[in-house]
C-alpha cells in the first residue's frame, strides 16, 4: 500500500472516481441528431438538442442497450425500472436550462471491477452505480474578444456516468481502475474509451486519513482530468496538499477543484456553499424507463468474453503467467492478436514474442497493435519455425527484424537467406572439428581446467556458421569433443 509520508506520520489516500463515458452511438440520447465527434460547430444539432419551445425528448433505445451491456460487463445489478430526472442549472451551453440525468433511480446499481496491479496482484473496487445522462454543449471563449460562442454538437450526446466506491488507495490503483474500465467498455464496444477526444472523462474524489483510521476525511472533487497520467499526477498533488493542510492543523474544505495541466496543480473552483442547487426532479416528459427482464437476459447472452474471463482462459488454455495474461487482455486488439498468433502453437512462446519483441518494436515505431506491420498470422509463422527447430531463437530475432522491415513471411526470409538451422550431427561435428583444430592452444587450456573457454568455442562455431546450428545440439557435441 502506497502511504503518503507526512511530517507526523503516514497517511492513507481514499479515492473514488466518477467517469463519464460517451456511449458509442450514431444518434444522441434523446434526439436523432448525429453524435459524431467533430464536425463544424452546430452541425449536429436538432431542435430538441437546442431546446426549442415545444420540443420533447424521446429515449434512444440503442443507448439504453449500451448502458445495460456495460452494467452487465461490470457484473452490476440492472434496475428494470429507472427514472430520468432533470438537473437544473443555467449555463449558455445547456440549452434547456437542465440536463436530463438519472438521480435517485439509475439504470445500473452496484457492481465491481477487478484491478490488475503490479506483480500480478489484484484488488476489487466496488461500482456504486451507472446512470445515463446527456452531455452539454461547448462554450467557446476564444472566438471573439467580447462574446462567447456556443457549439451544441455535443449537447444531448449520451453519457454513462460510472461512479466507483471510495475503494482506491493510490494513484496507481486509480490508473489501474481507469485502464480496466476502459478495457471493459472497449471490449463491449459501448464506449471507445478515447480520453483525448473526451469520450472518457474523469472526476476524482479524494480524501486523506491517518493510517489505521477507519472514518473518512473531508473530500475534494477534482474535475475533468483528461488522461490517466494526469489522474495520477492530480491525485499525488492533491494528497500532498491535503496532508500539508491537515498536519498544519487546518481543515479540508469540501470543494470542487480543477486540475491545471500546465502548472501541475489543483486549484479551487467552487466551494460547497457556492455549489449549485440542482433542484432534481423526475422529468415529466419521460415515463420511467421499464426494461423487460427477458430483453436484459438476451443482452447478457450476447456479451463478448471480457478481460477477466479472457485472462483466466489464457492462463489455463495457453499456460500463460498471470502477468503476461494481464498484459495481453488489457486491450482487446492485443488479446485477439495473441490468439491469432497462439492458435495451435506454443502459447507461452507466442506470449513472449508478443509482449517482449512485438510490443517493444511497436512502441519504438509509435504504432498501435492494429497498425502492426507484422500480422498475427505472420508472427504465428515465425513461432512455428522456432517450435519445429527450423530456426533458433537467436536467428528468429533477425528474421523478426527482417519481417518488420520487409513485411515478408518468416519462412520466405529463412529460405532466401538460408537461415535454416543445421541439425545434421555430421555437419555440426565437422564445423566443431574445424574450430578446435584452429584453436588447439585454447583446447589445451580448456582441458587443463579453464572451463570458461567453453563459451569461446560456442561463439567461434556460431560465428563460423552464421548462427545456424541448433544451440542444444552444438552444446552437446562440443562438450563431447572437448573431452577429447
Amino acid at each position, binding site marked *: 500500500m502506497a502511504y503518503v509520508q507526512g511530517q507526523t506520520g503516514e497517511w492513507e489516500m481514499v479515492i473514488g472516481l466518477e467517469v463519464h463515458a460517451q456511449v458509442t452511438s450514431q444518434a444522441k440520447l434523446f434526439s436523432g441528431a448525429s453524435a459524431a465527434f467533430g464536425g463544424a460547430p452546430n452541425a449536429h444539432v436538432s431542435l430538441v438538442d437546442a431546446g426549442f419551445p*415545444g420540443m*420533447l425528448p*424521446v*429515449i434512444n433505445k440503442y443507448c439504453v442497450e449500451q448502458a445495460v451491456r456495460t452494467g452487465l460487463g461490470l457484473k452490476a445489478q440492472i434496475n428494470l425500472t429507472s427514472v430520468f430526472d432533470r438537473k*437544473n442549472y443555467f449555463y449558455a451551453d445547456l440549452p434547456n*436550462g437542465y440536463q436530463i440525468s438519472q438521480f435517485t433511480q439509475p439504470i445500473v446499481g452496484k457492481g465491481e471491477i477487478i484491478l490488475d496491479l503490479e506483480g500480478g496482484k489484484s484488488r476489487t473496487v466496488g461500482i456504486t452505480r451507472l446512470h445515463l445522462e446527456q452531455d452539454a454543449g461547448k462554450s467557446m471563449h476564444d472566438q471573439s474578444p467580447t462574446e462567447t460562442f456556443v457549439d451544441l454538437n455535443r449537447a444531448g450526446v449520451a453519457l454513462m456516468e460510472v461512479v466507483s466506491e471510495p475503494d482506491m488507495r493510490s494513484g496507481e490503483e486509480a490508473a489501474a481502475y481507469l485502464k480496466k474500465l476502459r478495457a471493459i467498455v472497449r471490449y463491449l464496444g459501448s464506449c471507445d474509451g478515447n480520453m483525448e477526444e473526451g469520450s472518457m472523462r474523469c472526476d476524482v474524489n479524494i480524501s486523506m486519513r491517518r493510517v489505521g483510521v477507519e472514518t473518512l476525511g473531508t473530500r475534494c472533487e477534482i474535475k475533468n482530468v483528461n488522461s490517466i497520467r494526469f489522474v495520477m499526477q492530480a491525485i499525488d498533488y492533491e494528497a500532498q496538499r491535503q496532508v500539508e493542510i491537515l498536519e498544519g492543523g487546518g481543515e479540508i474544505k469540501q470543494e470542487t477543484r480543477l486540475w491545471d495541466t500546465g502548472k501541475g496543480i489543483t486549484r479551487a473552483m467552487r466551494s460547497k456553499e457556492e455549489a449549485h442547487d440542482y*433542484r432534481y426532479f423526475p422529468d*415529466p*416528459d419521460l415515463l420511467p424507463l421499464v426494461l423487460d427482464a427477458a430483453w436484459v437476459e438476451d443482452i447478457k447472452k450476447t456479451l463478448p468474453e471480457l478481460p477477466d474471463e479472457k485472462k483466466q482462459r489464457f492462463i489455463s488454455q495457453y499456460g500463460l503467467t498471470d502477468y503476461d495474461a494481464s498484459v495481453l487482455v488489457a486491450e482487446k486488439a492485443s488479446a485477439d492478436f495473441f490468439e491469432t498468433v497462439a492458435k495451435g502453437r506454443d502459447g507461452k512462446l507466442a506470449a513472449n514474442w508478443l509482449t517482449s519483441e512485438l510490443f517493444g518494436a511497436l512502441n519504438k515505431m509509435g504504432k498501435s497493435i492494429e497498425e502492426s506491420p507484422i500480422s498475427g498470422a505472420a508472427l504465428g509463422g515465425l513461432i512455428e519455425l522456432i517450435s519445429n527447430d527450423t530456426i533458433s531463437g537467436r536467428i528468429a530475432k533477425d528474421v523478426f527484424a527482417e519481417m518488420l522491415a520487409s513485411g515478408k513471411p518468416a519462412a520466405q526470409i529463412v529460405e532466401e537467406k538460408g537461415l535454416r538451422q543445421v541439425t545434421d550431427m555430421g555437419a555440426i561435428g565437422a564445423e566443431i572439428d574445424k574450430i578446435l583444430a584452429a584453436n588447439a592452444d585454447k583446447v589445451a587450456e580448456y582441458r587443463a581446467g579453464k572451463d570458461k573457454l567453453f563459451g569461446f568455442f560456442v561463439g567461434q562455431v556460431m560465428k563460423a556458421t552464421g548462427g545456424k546450428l541448433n544451440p542444444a545440439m552444438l552444446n552437446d557435441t562440443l562438450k563431447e569433443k572437448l573431452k577429447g
Partner: protein
Amino acid sequence: MTDLTDLSMTQALAGLAKKEFTATELTDRYIKASIKGQAATNAYITTTFDAAREAAKASDERRAAGHAGTMDGIPIAMKDLYCTKGVQTTAASKILEGFVPTYESTVSQKLADAGCITLGKANLDEFAMGSSNTTSAYGNVVSPWSGEDPANAARKLVPGGSSGGSAAAVAGRMALAATGTDTGGSIRQPAAITGIVGIKPTYGRCSRFGIIAYASSLDQAGAMTRTVADAALMLREMAGHDPKDSTSLNLPVPDFTQALGQSVKGLRIGIPREYRIDGIPAEIDTIWGKGAQMLREAGAEVVDITLPHTKYALPTYYIIAPAEASSNLARYDGVRFGLRETGDSLTEMYENTRGSGFGVEVRRRILMGTYVLSAGYYDAYYKKAQRVRRLIRQDFIGAFEKCDVILTPSAPSTAFAIGENEDDPIKMYLEDVFTVTLNLAGLPGIVVPMQLCANGLPMGMQLIGKPFDEMTLFKAAAALESAAGYNAKPPFVG
C-alpha cells in the same frame, strides 16, 4: 338564409358537403367576423387571413375533386401556445415576440391534415398561466359577453383563461372552433364562463409535441367548440399516439362521434359531496342540481360519491405546476431564440432578458417552482405534493367503482370583470378549484353550457370521465346538452 357563423361545425360540414356554400365563403365570413370581433375582444395575437383564404381555396378544390378531409373547410383559431411553422408563436409572452417556428406541432398538423383552416393564433394568458387572460403580453382578451346586458354594460368581462382568446373567438362567432390547452382548467373554465363546450381529454390522448410547455405532467391539448358533437369530431382528429411524445398514449382513438345520441339509461352519474364548497354562489349549486335532474330524467342513475382529498388539490397543483414550469421555462434565456437583452456578463444577460421578457405572474410561478424544488424544501413540498397527487387519483379510481361519470360545477362564478381578482393571486387561483383535480389525476373532462345565470352570463357544468373513456363522457355530455337546450348568444358577435 341563416348567417354562416350561426352554424355549428357539424352543420357547416353538411352545408359544405351539399355545396350550399364553399369553404371560401365560410372562411371569408369568419374573417369578416374576426376583424370586427378582434377590435372588441382582442381574441387573436396574430391573424393569418391571407393564408386562410389560400387554404380555403385549396379546400374547395379538394372537395370538388372528391377527397375532402373530415374537417375540410372549417375555420378555426389556434391557441398561440401551439407552434406553427412560419407563423409567429408567442405563448402570449414578450420573451417569444417575433419567434417564428420552423416546425409544426403534431396536433395543429393533424387538424391541417383534416382540412381545418387556421384564421389566426389565439390570445392566452402568458405561458398559459392564468384564469382570466389578463396576463398576456399582447393585451387582455375581453369577453364577448361584456356589454349589452345592463348588469354588465359598464364592465369589460374576462373570457376566463388561459385559453381566453380561443373561448372568446368561439363564443363570439369569430371561429367555428378553437384549440385549447388545459393544465389546471384552461380549456374548461373559459368554456364554462363563455357558454361553449370544452373538452380536456385523458392525459396522453393528444401529443404535446410542438405545444409550448407550461407543466408537462398536466398539460393536455383539447377542443373548444359550440356543440358536443363538434367537440367529439374535433378531438377525434386531434388525438392519437405520437412517437415524438413519450407520454402520448399508444392506444387506438375511438370515433367519439359514435357516442352521440346514445342513451344514458342506466349510466351512473356520481355527485361528489366535496365539490359543494363555501363561498360558491347558490345559483351554481342550483344549476348543478338541475343538471343531475336532467340526466336522471334521461334515464341515468344519480349516486353520491366521495372524493376526500379534493381540498388538497389546489395547493398540490400550485406546487407541481410551478415546479415543472420553473424548469420548462429555463430555456428562455436569450441565447438561442426570442428576446435577448444584453448584459455585461452571462448572469446579467439572463437577468435582463428574463426580467423584462416574463410578466409578473410567470415570474411569480417560476419563483414558487424554484423554491419548492430547492434543497431542503423538496421533500416538504414537491415530494409531498406528488404523494397527495396519487391520493387524489386514488379517490377517483375508488369513486369510479360506484359511477361511470362524475358531474360537478366547472367554475366558482360566472365571468368576472377585468381587474377584479388581480389584487389577490390566491383568489384567482380559486378559479381552478373544480378543474385542477382532473389534471392531477390525468382524467378527461368536458364542460357543457347549461344556461344564463341571473346576471345574464352563461354557466356550464363539468362531466368527468374514467381514464381513456371519453366515449362515455361524450355520451353523457350530449345528453346533458340536449336536455339543457342552451342556445344563448353573446352581445358581441363578429
